[in-house]
């Protein structure tokens, strides 16, 4: 046992380190195949932030399907980067796909088509007429009466409709099942059958998209409160379709692929560069013809087109070398040319690395960060620490208490370091203080709670601190994981928030106040649980050192409450000062401000009740559970109201979780209010020598 006691911490640390190294090892593609992970390190701009393709792919997948993994139609998992490449290059393949049937030879001739046997033509074949056909369809109602109602006209309008449908949406189809659609009404509308996983491919509902977008538009015009679940799902799906189409078109939805040729200039959307190159090339060819250097009649159509393509390539290289290099990557991928792809990626990365300097390093680190998923791994290890503590308590009878709780402590310390380092990395990548949005507040609260737990464990080494720290750490990271479903977690900050000073002071302080209040609340859980267990007699009331167990937990609870008051008050007041600095109102009674004030008031109430002797240990614990509820309200509840400066939109899952959290706390409060004598009835009868039994009531 002594041996175990000495080595248990080392064993736990070694296992955790092995696990971390295993998951953090940088991924590599096998040599001789396309280097998707290298492609993932290419920088792009989305949402105003320079980030690697890898982040773009993962966040997009998260938004579309709810997780970062993606499988090809055969069910094999593929790297997110390959999926992104397939989406970004889906266009060319589908443009060449012969799918429009045009049987009328006259119409074929009008559209400049060379007849083929099946009378099938591709979007590329239609070439310059695509835009005209689309316009025809757009103005169909107005144009139709002007033409004779014969078969050819009908055919033309039909074709125009098909072309427009295909050109706007159909050409971007990929067979990956990445769209999560989990509403029955919506599935019925899209003609889809519910299936396991509820993930659907773009191809499966592409013909319904125009109708869907129209409906979603109507839904979006309704005021927030009048929308029902179906409306919200419609809006949600339409946004995801827009994101997907933006990826496929390599532009739109704040996506910018091409870095500037000169530093400090803006990044540009890829098609814009392409269009500029074409314009320049056409101008040059026309000039050459005018100057007589080029004779179209002598050259013939095919040679002229080749010449034009040459000019385009040259113009592209002149306008934007990066755009050209990027184009080469896509072309190589389209041609399934592994060598060319790898070469193009390596060349492009070298070029951008030199160009972007420090930014490039951040992009590289972010790729590793994405792969490591440190917060996810930490959550797993926190669960491990909780298990160790459970083992320590359950095995206290056989002497596991000390070795296992020590192991848990050291494990928690290691996870804390990883967690804090990961948060630090995020801060470095963003160039921001720790808390900038709800997601990072969850990460921060986790790390803060673990720190509290470690310090408490240092003072009272009986496992309570570790248990509380590890539990809050794990739970907060699970919450963070769910908050990350929105995709980007490092979004840029609105102008009024764009001040590192106030973010670093006010926001951090308020978050620390949340943290401490939650720690106090979880200590209260522990107190109420232990109170019952000691009453029943399952846990000894005295600790080995002669310390009173319940008194110890109550002391921790009190100390943490003091910190909670200090942090939440200071944070709230700093918020007031910020408000005074930015719009001249020290206190605006905004819901989020009020939420912070409620935490302060609640903590102050507990402290005064304790000082006044109105409550004792147990009462303080019960009140601390109220602190849990109030903090839950302030953290997430106020955002749900949809008013005020801090409102970030309604989230139905969050509302349900919050209600669950309140119910749980209320239930434990109820349990905590049950007089201790009730529980003692179930325990061992107190020894007569120890405690004289009370005489029956009637005799008193």
């Amino acid at each position, binding site marked *: 046992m002594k041996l175990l006691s000495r080595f248990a911490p080392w064993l736990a640390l070694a296992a955790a380190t092995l696990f971390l190294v295993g998951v953090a090892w940088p991924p590599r593609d096998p040599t001789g195949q396309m280097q998707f992970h290298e492609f993932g390190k290419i920088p792009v*701009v*989305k*949402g*105003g932030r320079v980030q690697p393709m890898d982040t773009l792919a993962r966040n997009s997948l998260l938004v579309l399907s709810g997780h970062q993994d993606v499988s090809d139609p055969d069910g094999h998992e593929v790297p997110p980067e390959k999926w992104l490449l397939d989406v970004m290059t889906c266009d060319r393949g589908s443009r060449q796909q012969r799918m429009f049937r045009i049987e009328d030879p006259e119409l074929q001739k009008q559209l400049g088509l060379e007849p083929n046997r099946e009378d099938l033509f591709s979007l590329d074949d239609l070439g310059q007429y695509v835009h005209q056909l689309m316009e025809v369809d757009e103005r169909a109602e107005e144009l139709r009466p002007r033409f004779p109602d014969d078969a050819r006209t009908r055919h033309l309008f039909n074709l125009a409709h098909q072309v427009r449908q295909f050109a706007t949406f159909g050409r971007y189809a990929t067979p990956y099942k990445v769209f999560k659609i989990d509403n029955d009404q919506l599935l019925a509308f899209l003609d889809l059958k519910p299936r396991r996983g509820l993930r659907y491919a773009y191809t499966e509902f592409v013909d319904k998209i125009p109708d869907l977008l129209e409906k979603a538009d109507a839904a979006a015009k309704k005021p927030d*409160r*009048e929308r029902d679940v179906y409306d919200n799902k419609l809006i949600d799906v339409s946004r995801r379709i827009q994101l997907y189409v933006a990826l496929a078109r390599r532009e739109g939805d704040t*996506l*910018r692929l091409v870095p500037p040729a000169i530093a400090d200039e*803006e*990044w540009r959307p890829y098609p814009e560069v392409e269009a500029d190159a074409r314009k320049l090339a056409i101008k040059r060819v026309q000039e050459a013809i005018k100057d007589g250097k080029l004779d179209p009649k002598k050259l013939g159509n095919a040679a002229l087109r080749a010449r034009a393509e040459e000019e385009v390539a040259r113009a592209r290289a002149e306008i934007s070398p990066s755009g050209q290099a990027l184009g080469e990557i896509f072309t190589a991928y389209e041609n399934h040319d592994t060598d060319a792809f790898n070469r193009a990626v390596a060349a492009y990365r070298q070029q951008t690395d030199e160009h972007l300097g420090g930014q490039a390093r951040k992009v590289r680190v972010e790729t590793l960060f994405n792969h490591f998923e440190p917060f996810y791994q930490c959550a797993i290890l926190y669960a491990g620490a909780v298990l160790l503590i459970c083992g320590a308590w359950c095995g206290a009878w056989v002497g596991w208490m000390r070795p296992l709780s020590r192991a848990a402590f050291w494990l928690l310390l290691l996870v804390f370091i990883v967690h804090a380092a990961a948060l630090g990395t995020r801060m470095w990548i963003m160039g921001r203080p720790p808390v900038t949005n709800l997601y990072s507040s969850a990460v921060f609260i986790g790390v803060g709670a673990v720190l509290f737990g470690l310090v408490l464990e240092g003072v009272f080494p009986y496992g309570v601190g570790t248990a509380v720290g590890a539990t809050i750490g794990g739970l907060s990271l699970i919450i963070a994981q769910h908050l990350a479903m929105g995709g980007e977690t490092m*979004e*840029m900050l609105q*102008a*009024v928030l*764009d*001040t590192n000073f106030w973010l670093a002071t006010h926001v951090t302080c308020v978050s620390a106040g949340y943290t401490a209040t939650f720690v106090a609340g979880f200590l209260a859980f522990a107190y109420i649980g232990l109170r019952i267990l000691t009453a029943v007699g399952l846990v000894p009331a005295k600790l080995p050192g002669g310390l009173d167990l319940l008194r110890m937990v109550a*002391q921790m609870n*009190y*100390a943490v409450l*003091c*910190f909670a008051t*200090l942090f939440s*008050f*200071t944070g709230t*007041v*700093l918020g*007031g*000062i*910020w408000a*005074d600095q*930015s*719009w*001249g*109102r*020290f206190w605006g*009674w*905004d*819901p989020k401000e*009020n*939420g912070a004030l*409620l935490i302060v*008031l609640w903590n102050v*109430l507990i402290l*005064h009740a304790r*000082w*006044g*002797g*109105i409550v004792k240990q147990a009462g303080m614990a019960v009140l601390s559970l109220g602190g849990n509820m*109030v903090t839950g309200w302030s953290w997430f*509840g*106020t955002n*749900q*109201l*949809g*008013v005020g*400066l801090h*409102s970030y939109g309604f989230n139905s899952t969050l*509302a349900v979780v*919050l*209600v669950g959290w309140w119910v749980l706390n209320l239930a434990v409060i109820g349990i905590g209010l049950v007089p201790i004598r009730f529980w003692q009835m179930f325990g061992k009868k107190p020894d007569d020598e120890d405690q004289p039994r009370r005489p029956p009531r009637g005799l008193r």
Partner: protein
Amino acid sequence: MSETAITTSPKPPSVVPEPVIRTERSSRAWFVRYGLAPAGSLRWTVALFALAILLVFFGTLAQIDEGIFTVLKKYFRTPIAWIPLQVFVRFGQVFLWVPPTAKVAGSFPFPGGQLLGGLLMVNLFAAHSLLLVNLSRGYGLSRKLGTALLKRSGIFVLHGGIVLLMLGELVTTCFSVESRMSIVEGRSTNYAEDNRAAELVVIDPSDPKSNDVVAIPASLLVKNRVVQNDALPFDVELVRYMSNSAFPDRPVGDQPNPATAGDGLRFMAIEESEVSGTSSDQRVDVPSAYVTFKRKGTGELLGTYMLSAWLSAEGRSEHVVVDGKTYDVALRFKRAYKPYTLHLIQFRHDKYMGTDVPMNYSSRIDLVDREEGQEREVVISMNNPLRYRGDTYYQADFLRPPGPRGTVLQVVRNPGWEIPYVACAMVALGMLIHFSLHLVGFIRRRIA
């Protein structure tokens, strides 16, 4: 944790059954026992905190339906707040699957912010007096008293800060004035407008050097309907007042048009419901009115005009001719003129690359003050206000297209703006002292 902060859960100062002769002392004891002790009881403190928590919670929920200023007035800046039962329904709708159409009438009274704040103050003063009385009685003027006071110094500083904080809020409530100043790029402005008060102005432009302006507050006009005054060149009668209206538009259908002259013949003002709810979109009520002018004495009609703050914001006014003299008439937001001028050199509005997320707003301004002989260039941006002669200018908004480019500054005149800063520093310091003393004591005991 036997250490208690304010030992008020008092063994009431033991009532010594002393001879009645020493009336002075016993009356003091009586006051302490039946006055200070109950008033300064921590039970009261806790109860008041609990009520304050509920009030803040209700006040938050009420913001789903009501504007921030309404909530301020009805919940926090009042002795008694009437809480509508509907706020609970609202809470249920957001969190508990209550159908969105549910409505419950009725309301109940609840102590408002002013009452709670006042009671907390009384409680605080009583508790501290009681503490001092008890201490001085226990120790006399000895060194021990000094130690005891020192031990509680954190508490004194902290609560002093709280008192100051609440006083600051009181000063703000009573004296703070908020208004807005819009400046078009390349132009100057020397007045701020109060968006929550309108006025009808009659301007005599005949003197080229300075305009003679008579202003009638809209509230007075609404109350009296008819305004007759020697300063006015004609009598004013209100036909219809809209406290919020849409931008005047061409008349639709065959609605009766009350206007008989001016722009009102071509455009009609359309009433809109008052802006309530969120302050996040920064919308304000824009009033319009139909007003009839009559010749003094005879009551001869000069015409019924449509006046709108929308039009006066664009610099347009109506012209009323009486006895061959032309007067400009307009309905506009109440103006407060400043003894200096702000000239907007440039307004910048940067966005993050490829997005509509605003990154920064800033106004480069030339401040010209003839009185003080000052002229300097300043930049006002988010989180960087300009403080000048008691006014503070904040970057609040900007003039939106299609109009000209320009900035909107929030102007706040609050004589008590520094109070919260001092107060907060005091509270933080107090807490630090108090908790540190505790922590040191705790660690000492652990080590011992």
